[in-house]
C-alpha cells in the first residue's frame, strides 16, 4: 500500500485531466480500457480531475497512469509498481533512441504502448 502511495506521488507529473474527454486515440483506448482497474488510480484521477490548476503534463502516450492501470489488469499490482517506476525513468530519458516521438494534443509525446508480455 505504501509502495502504491509512493507510486502515486511519482506519477504526479502525469495526471490526465479527466474533466475533459480524451482527444487522441491512444489515450482514448487506454483510458477507457481500464477505467476502474485500481482504487489508487481512481483516487489519483478523481483528485486531479477536480483541480483546475493541474493539467496533463505527461510526456508519454499513453500516460503513466493509463499504462499503470492497463498493466495492473494484465500483470497484477506488484509487477505494475516496479514497471511503473521504470516507466517514470523512461520518461526522464526522453530521447528518440529509446522511444518514438509523436505530436499529440499539440505537444511532443513519446509513444510506449503496453506489451502483451508482462516481463517488459
Amino acid at each position, binding site marked *: 500500500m*505504501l509502495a502504491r502511495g509512493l507510486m502515486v506521488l511519482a506519477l504526479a507529473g502525469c495526471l490526465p485531466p479527466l474533466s475533459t474527454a480524451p482527444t487522441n486515440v491512444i489515450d482514448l483506448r487506454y483510458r477507457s480500457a481500464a477505467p476502474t482497474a485500481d482504487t489508487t488510480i481512481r483516487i489519483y484521477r478523481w483528485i486531479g480531475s477536480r483541480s483546475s490548476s493541474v493539467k496533463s503534463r505527461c510526456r508519454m502516450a499513453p500516460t503513466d497512469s493509463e499504462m499503470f492501470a492497463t498493466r495492473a489488469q494484465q500483470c497484477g499490482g506488484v509487477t505494475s509498481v516496479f514497471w511503473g517506476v521504470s516507466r517514470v525513468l523512461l520518461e526522464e*530519458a526522453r530521447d528518440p533512441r529509446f522511444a518514438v516521438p509523436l505530436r499529440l494534443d499539440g505537444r511532443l509525446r513519446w509513444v510506449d*504502448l503496453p506489451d502483451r508480455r508482462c516481463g517488459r
Partner: protein
Amino acid sequence: MRWWIALALLALLGQSSVAGADPDPVPPAAVAIPSPVPSPIPSPCEDAAVGPRLVTLLRAHRFADVHHAVVGLRVLCAPSPALEAHRVLDDIALLRLEDRAWALSDLQELSRGARAETANVVLAWAYAMDRDTDAARAVLARIPAPRAAAIAALAALDDRGGFASHAAKLPGELGAPASALAARYHAARRKHPAVAGILSALIPGAGQLYAGSVQAAAVTFVLNGLFIGATIELALDRRYVTAAAAGTAASVFYVGGILNAGDLARRRNELASQPSRDALEDLLVPELTGSFPPP
C-alpha cells in the same frame, strides 16, 4: 351614410371571401433537374489509389491510421477483392500494434478466400513471431517452401545460428542480401540488457548510463541515494517502522531502476536495428509492407 356602410361591409365580405377561399392550385414552376454530373472524387470503394495510400501509411509505421481507414472502408464498401487486400493491410497494422485477436481471426477468414496465399504468409509470420511454433508450422505447411524458409529466417532473426540455418534454404538471390542485412541488424544491437541491469544493480544509474541516458541515470542515482540513505539514517536512529517504510520505497525504486536499465538497452537496440529489420522484412516477406502478388 348608410350606403357607405353597406359598401364597406360588401368590401369586407368580398375580401374575406377571397381570403377564405382555397386558392386555385397553381402548378409549381417546372424545376430543371440537373443531369447527374460525375463527382470529381471517386468513391473510396472504387478508387484504385486507396490501396497505395494505405501501403504508404503502413510503410510509415502509421498503423493506427491504416486501421481506422480500413474500418471505414469495411463499413462503406461491399466485399470485393480490393477490400480483401485492404483487410490484409489492416491485419498487418493490428499485429504491429499488438492487437492480435482480431487480426488473427480476420486472417483465418481471409486464408479461405481469394487472398489465401497472402493471408497465410502473414498468418504464419504472426504465429512465428509470437513463438507459437505449432500454429506456425501448421500454416507454413500451406506455403511454398522458399516462402516458408523466408518466414522462418525472419522469425529466427535474433538467433544468429537459427537465422543462418534458415537463410541457407533461401533462393540464391535472397540468401546473400538477407545475410548482409542480418549482419547489419546484429551490428546495430550493441547494448546488452542484462549488462545494463547488472550495472544498475551494482550502482543505481550505471545501467542507464551504459544504455546512453545521462538524465535517467542521474534521476535513478539521486532517488536511490535518497531512499537508501534515509533508510540507513532512520535505522541508525532506531526508528525501525519508518526505516522499514523508507526501505520498502527504496526497494521499489531500486528494482524499478534495474528494470529500466535493461528496458532502455533493449529499446535502444530495437530502434537502432529497426531500419535493417524493415529492409529484411521487405526482402523476405514483402507482404508485410503491402507488396501483394495478384490474387
